[in-house]
C-alpha cells in the first residue's frame, strides 16, 4: 500500500520529542505520527527510547522539548488518567490486570458505570462487555476471574478494556510475546478489525516478521533518535535488524552440527506439584546428552516453570527420579546441584536471577559468593569480587556506567546479560535455560544465542525451555512440547516444522481446536 497525501490530520502526532535523564538522552527530537486506521510499528533495541516515548504519550513522563498533537490540536498530557480521558490506551507487556478480580471488574476498574450516586450499574456493564466482545467474535463470561484465564485470554481482556474506554489510540507493547502462533494470528485479525473501525494502533514488538506482517508503517529508533521509516513492502527482516542495531545482524545463529556424547541428565517419571498443591508436571521423562540442546516449547503456564524448578533444586518433586552423570540428585537442593555443575538461567530474572537493589558486582557472584576467591572463610574479598565483575561486564558486553550501579538501573537486556555472565561461567555439566531471551532485542538475542551454542559445542548438556517458538526451533537439536504438564512429541529438530510444533503447543497433539472459549480454567 502507498502513502497518499492524507487530508485528515493524523490522530496522533509527536513532534521533536526530547527527554533527558541524568547522563542519558533518552529521546532526541523524535517525530512520530499515526493516522486514523493505521497500525504503526515502533521498532528499537532495549534502551533505544521506545518506552520513554510511550511513557511521555501516556502521561508518565514530561518531555523536555517537543509537543504532542491529537487530531491536529496540541495537547499536554499530564497523567495516565488524562491520557485515558483523551482516548489513549496502553496494553503493557506485563498485563496490568488484577488476577483475583473478574473480567468485568478488571475492565471497569477506574471507570465504573454508575446507576445513581453509590451503586454500580453491574448489569448494564456486563451487557456492554458481552456486546463489545461479540464484535470481535469472542464469547466472554464477564464474571470469570482473570487469574483463571489463559494468557491469550488475558490479552483479549486488556484489549477489551481499552476498547471499553473508547480509546482511539491503542498502544500495544509486545502483545504477542506470550502467545502461540495461532493466538497471534487471531489477535492480528482483531487489530485489523479495530483499524477498520478507525482506531489507530502503535505496535511495539521485537519480532521482525510480525511487524512486517501487521504494520502499515514502521518507524525504527536507535539511541533515542529516529533512524528510519519503512513501508513493509519496501523492507525485509535483515534491513530492519540492521537499522535497529546499527550493524549487520545474524538473525539466525549458525548452530552447526551437534556432536552429542553420553547422557548427562536423565529424568524418569517426574511429577511436581505447584504452590497450591496441584500436580502440574505429570510423569515427565527426558534425557539430555552432553553437547546437545533439548528445547522444550509450550505456552507459558503448562508446568514448565515447575519442571525447571524441580530440576534445579528449588522445588521438591513428588515422584520420579533425576540423575546427573549417573548420580541420583533427585533430593539435592540448589547449592549441591550448583557444585555438581548445574547452572540455571531463570525465566523471571527479577524474581530469581537478580537482587535488584544490589550492585552488579554482588549480583555477578550471587551463586559463588561463599567460595574462593570471593571469600576466605566468612570474610568477603571485595577486590576479587570487583575484579571478577569488571571482567564479566567486559566479556559479556554489559552496557553499564560502572559495576557499582544497582541491577535495577539496567535495561532488561543488560540485566539478562548479567545473569548469563554469572551462570555461563566455568565448566558446566548442565545448563538449564528458562526463557533466556524474553523481552530482549535482536542484538542481545543474537549475543546470548551465540553463547548458548558455544557452551553446547564445549560439551555442556543444555535444556532450553521457551515459550518463544522461534527460539526453540532455532537453537534446539531435539524438540519437545509441554502441554498441560506432560511432555509430548519429542522429535528431532530437523524433522520439526513451525506449524507442527505450534499445533502441539495449542492442542497437545489432538485434533486442532483453535481457541478454547473463556470459560473455566484454560491455563
Amino acid at each position, binding site marked *: 500500500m502507498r502513502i497518499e497525501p492524507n487530508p485528515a490530520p493524523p490522530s496522533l502526532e509527536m513532534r521533536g520529542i526530547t527527554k533527558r535523564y541524568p547522563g542519558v538522552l533518552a529521546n532526541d527530537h523524535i517525530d512520530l505520527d499515526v493516522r486514523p486506521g493505521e497500525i504503526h510499528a515502533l521498532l528499537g533495541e532495549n534502551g533505544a527510547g521506545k518506552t520513554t516515548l510511550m511513557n511521555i504519550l501516556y502521561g508518565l513522563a514530561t518531555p523536555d522539548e517537543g509537543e504532542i498533537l491529537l487530531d491536529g490540536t496540541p495537547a499536554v498530557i499530564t497523567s495516565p488518567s488524562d491520557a485515558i480521558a483523551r482516548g489513549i490506551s496502553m496494553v503493557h507487556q506485563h498485563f496490568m490486570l488484577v488476577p483475583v478480580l473478574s473480567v468485568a471488574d478488571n475492565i471497569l476498574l477506574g471507570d465504573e458505570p454508575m446507576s445513581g450516586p453509590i451503586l454500580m450499574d453491574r448489569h448494564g456493564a456486563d451487557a456492554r462487555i458481552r456486546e463489545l466482545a461479540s464484535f470481535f467474535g469472542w464469547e466472554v463470561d464477564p464474571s470469570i476471574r482473570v487469574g483463571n484465564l489463559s494468557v491469550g485470554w488475558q490479552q483479549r481482556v486488556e484489549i477489551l478494556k481499552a476498547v471499553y474506554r473508547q480509546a482511539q489510540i491503542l498502544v500495544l507493547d509486545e502483545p504477542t510475546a506470550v502467545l502461540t502462533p495461532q493466538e497471534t494470528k487471531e489477535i492480528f485479525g482483531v487489530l485489523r478489525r479495530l483499524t477498520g473501525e478507525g482506531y489507530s494502533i502503535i505496535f511495539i514488538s521485537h519480532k521482525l516478521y510480525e511487524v512486517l506482517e501487521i504494520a502499515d508503517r514502521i518507524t525504527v529508533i536507535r539511541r533515542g533518535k529516529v533512524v528510519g521509516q519503512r513501508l513493509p513492502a519496501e523492507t525485509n527482516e535483515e534491513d530492519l535488524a540492521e537499522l535497529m542495531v546499527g550493524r549487520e545482524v545474524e538473525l539466525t545463529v549458525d548452530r552447526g552440527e551437534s556432536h552429542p556424547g553420553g547422557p548427562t541428565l536423565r529424568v524418569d517419571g517426574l511429577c511436581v506439584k505447584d504452590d497450591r498443591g496441584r500436580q502440574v508436571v505429570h510423569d515427565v521423562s527426558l534425557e539430555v546428552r552432553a553437547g546437545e540442546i533439548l528445547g522444550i516449547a509450550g505456552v507459558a503456564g503448562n508446568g514448565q516453570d515447575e519442571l525447571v524448578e524441580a530440576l*534445579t533444586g*528449588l522445588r521438591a518433586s513428588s515422584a520420579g527420579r533425576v540423575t546427573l552423570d549417573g548420580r541420583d540428585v533427585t533430593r539435592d537442593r540448589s*547449592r549441591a546441584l550448583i557444585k555438581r555443575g548445574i547452572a540455571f538461567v531463570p525465566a523471571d530474572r527479577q524474581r*530469581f*536471577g537478580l*537482587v535488584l537493589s*544490589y550492585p552488579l558486582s554482588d549480583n555477578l557472584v*550471587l551463586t559463588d559468593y561463599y567460595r574462593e576467591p570471593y571469600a576466605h572463610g566468612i570474610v*568477603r574479598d571485595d577486590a576479587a569480587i570487583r575484579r571478577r565483575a569488571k571482567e564479566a561486564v567486559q566479556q559479556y558486553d554489559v552496557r553499564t556506567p560502572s559495576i557499582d550501579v*544497582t541491577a535495577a538501573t539496567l535495561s532488561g537486556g543488560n540485566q539478562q546479560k548479567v545473569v548469563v555472565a554469572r551462570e555461563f561461567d566455568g565448566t558446566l555439566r548442565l545448563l538449564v535455560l528458562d526463557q533466556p531471551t524474553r523481552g530482549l532485542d535482536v542484538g542481545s538475542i543474537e549475543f546470548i544465542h551465540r553463547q548458548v551454542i558455544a557452551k553446547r559445542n564445549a560439551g555442556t548438556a543444555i535444556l532450553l525451555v521457551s515459550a518463544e517458538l522461534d527460539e526453540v526451533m532455532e537453537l534446539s537439536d531435539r524438540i519437545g512440547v509441554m502441554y498441560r504438564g506432560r511432555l509430548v512429541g519429542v522429535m528431532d529438530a530437523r524433522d520439526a516444522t513451525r506449524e507442527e510444533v505450534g499445533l502441539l503447543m495449542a492442542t497437545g497433539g489432538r485434533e486442532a481446536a483453535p481457541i478454547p472459549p473463556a470459560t473455566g480454567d484454560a491455563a
Partner: protein
Amino acid sequence: MNLRRTISVLTIPTLAIVLALIVGGAVMILSSPLVNGSLDVTLPFVAYAALASGAFGSVDALVQTVVSATPLILAGLAVGIGFKAGLFNIGAQGQFLIGAVAAAAVGAGLAHASPFVAIPAAVLAAMIAGAIYGFIPGFLKAFTGAHEVVTTIMLNYVAIQFVAYLITGPLRAAGATFARSPDVGAASLPILIGDNGHLGIIFAIAAVPLAWWLLYRTTLGFEVRTVGANPDAARYAGMSPKAVLIATLSVCGLLAGLAGAGEILGISGYMPAGYSTNVGFDGITVALLGRANPIGILFSGLLLGAMRAGSNLMQINAGVPVQMIDVLQGVILFFLAAELLVRAIFRVRAAKAEVAELQTVSRSYGGQTTP
C-alpha cells in the same frame, strides 16, 4: 558508599527530626497557658536550650547521654539487623527483659564471687537468654510460617509475665521491702567514667562496628541482606532462607539481651518486679531513624539518648515535663513512616534507595515476607 548517596539517605531522617522539633515546639506553646497562665511563645527555645545543655552541657551530661544511649543502640541494632533480613522484630522488648532477668539471676547467684567470673557469666547468660528468646519466633517463622510480628508481640507479654513471676517468686530477695531480685554484687559493671559511665557503654560501642562488619564484609551478612532483599533469589543462589531467619532473629535477641544486662548490671544493680522501660520499643524508632544501618543506629541512638539525658534539666529549667520526649519521639516516628508527607513539605525527591526497612514494616502487616 559515596557522599551523594549518604546525603540522600540522611535527608529524610534529618527532616523528620526538624519537623518533630517544630511540632514539639508548637505543642509546648499551645500547652503553656496550662503551666504559666499565659501563652509563652519563647518556651520552646528555653526548653530546647535546657535540653541541649542537659545533654551536652558538661562532662557529666555527656556521660549521661552516652549511658542513656547504650541500651537504645543495642536495641536499635536488634531491630535494625532484623530489617536487613526482611524481619520486623517487635520482640526486642521481650528479648531485653529476658536478658535482664537472666543477668539479674546469674549476677545474684555470683554476687560474692570474683568479678572476673561474675561479670562475664552474668553478661553471657543475658546474651544467651536473649538469643534463645529470639530463636523461638525465628524457628516458628521458618517451620510453621507464623509471622514474627505476631509471635514477637505475644512473646513480649509472655516475657513480662514470666519476669513478674520470677521476681515475686523464686528470685525474690529475702528481706527486701518490695518485690525485687537480690543485689548483683560482684557482677556489677565497673564505672569507667563520670558518675555512672559503666562498662556496658563499651559493649554498645563495640557492637556497632562488629555488626557493620558482619553485615557488609562477611558472607553471613551477605546472606542476611540477600534474604531480606529477595528471598527467592536467595534460594536460587543456594542459600537457606530458613537458617538465615533463625540465625538473624537469634542474633537480634542476643543484642537485646545484652542491652538488658547493661541496664541491670551497670545501673540498677537488681531487677524490680515492675521493671518497666520501653527500651525494646524505642529500638524500633532508633532503627528506623538510623535507616537500619549500624552507623546510623549509633547516631540515632545517641540522639534519642541525648534527649532522654537532657529531659530532666528541661523539666527543671523550662517546666516542660520529661514526657515531652515521648511526644518528640512519636512525632519523629510518624514522619519517618509518612515519608511522602515529609517529601511534600520540603519538596525533596531524594533518598528512595534505602527505604527497604520501611517496606519491611508495611509488608509485615500484609503478611508477605514469608520465605
